């Protein structure tokens, strides 16, 4: 079968380079910083923690518990102050802290918490989280 053969090495290199760039260091640092700011907000200024919630998560919390600033500190979210491990894939991150696990997503306004107060629920199941989106 005779068909044209294109030179694709350059395109392939770009493809692999792009694929390898899934977990960038600066993204990891930014996600970690946002997670720590969220827990700091929980300790001192609930409004700051609310500002770091993802839109869907904030909406879910307020629809069931009332205004975020009045209800966020009543959720079962352990106090955490040190990051043990961060995974970033695309615009999603999982931050494992000393006392909690949080999930974040990168919106146009920066990293926001999509779920917090999370406990592992077996290998095949999602984490059980006190605060999360619908």
């Amino acid at each position, binding site marked *: 079968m005779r068909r*044209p053969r*294109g030179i694709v090495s350059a395109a392939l290199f770009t493809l692999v380079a792009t694929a390898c760039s899934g977990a960038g260091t600066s993204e990891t640092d930014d996600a970690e910083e946002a997670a720590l700011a969220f827990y700091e907000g929980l300790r001192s200024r609930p409004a700051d923690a609310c500002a770091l919630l993802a*839109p869907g998560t904030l909406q879910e919390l307020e629809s069931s518990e009332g205004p975020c600033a009045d209800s966020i500190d009543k959720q079962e979210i352990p106090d955490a102050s040190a990051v043990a491990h961060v995974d970033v894939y695309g615009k999603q991150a999982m931050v494992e802290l000393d006392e909690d696990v949080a999930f974040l997503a990168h919106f146009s306004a920066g990293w926001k918490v*999509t779920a917090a107060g999370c406990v592992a629920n077996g290998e095949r199941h999602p984490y059980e989280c006190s605060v999360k989106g619908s």
Partner: protein
Amino acid sequence: MTWVRHHSLSLAFGVLLLGSLVGQAFTGQADFNGKAAASAMPTYSWWEYVTSSHFTVDVAENWQSEYLQFLLFILLTVWLIQVGSPESKKPEEAGRESDKDQKVGRYAVTDSPAWAHATGWRLSLFSHSLALTMATIFFGSWVAQLVAGRSAFNAERLMDLQRPLGWGDYLAGPDFWNRTFQNWQSEFLAVATMVVFSIYLRERGSPESKPVGEPHTSTGVEG
């Protein structure tokens, strides 16, 4: 204009490739963003999408299967025969063929490529340069599929509040192999049907077809 006419086949497929990639980029972005918005998750700009693992894995899984298809077709047609097909050699020609038939070494003609005149590793390398290039691109694309596929898959897992998978778990899991096999089967189907259909069916003027009046039993005859 003569140059364009003389390369019109390559140029046409180049344009089709670029058009299809652009189409895939826009429709893929729209599909991804539709699902992300429904889950109140971040959306991607066009540039963010085409440089994301989501777009990369979709491109790479198709590329690797195309190059595997051609690699196998190039290699298997050295030895395997389909009587009546213009895609096959005649049964008596199966194998690597003689230096005289291949115009190498002392049988090279004036216009033969320089390394066809050579001996040793240069002749050996040039004699397999097509399959080696196809194999390199195939494996490169397959690795790109693995790397980008794991990243895209883990992004979805994180969205679903699940722990991301390591390399071993992803490689042993269904996502990588489902993407691989669903592309391989369609490529093998296309080659098999091309080989068999071209025994009995014709497209007048196409070098991929036998001449219209050529008997069904003729093998290795292209129009």
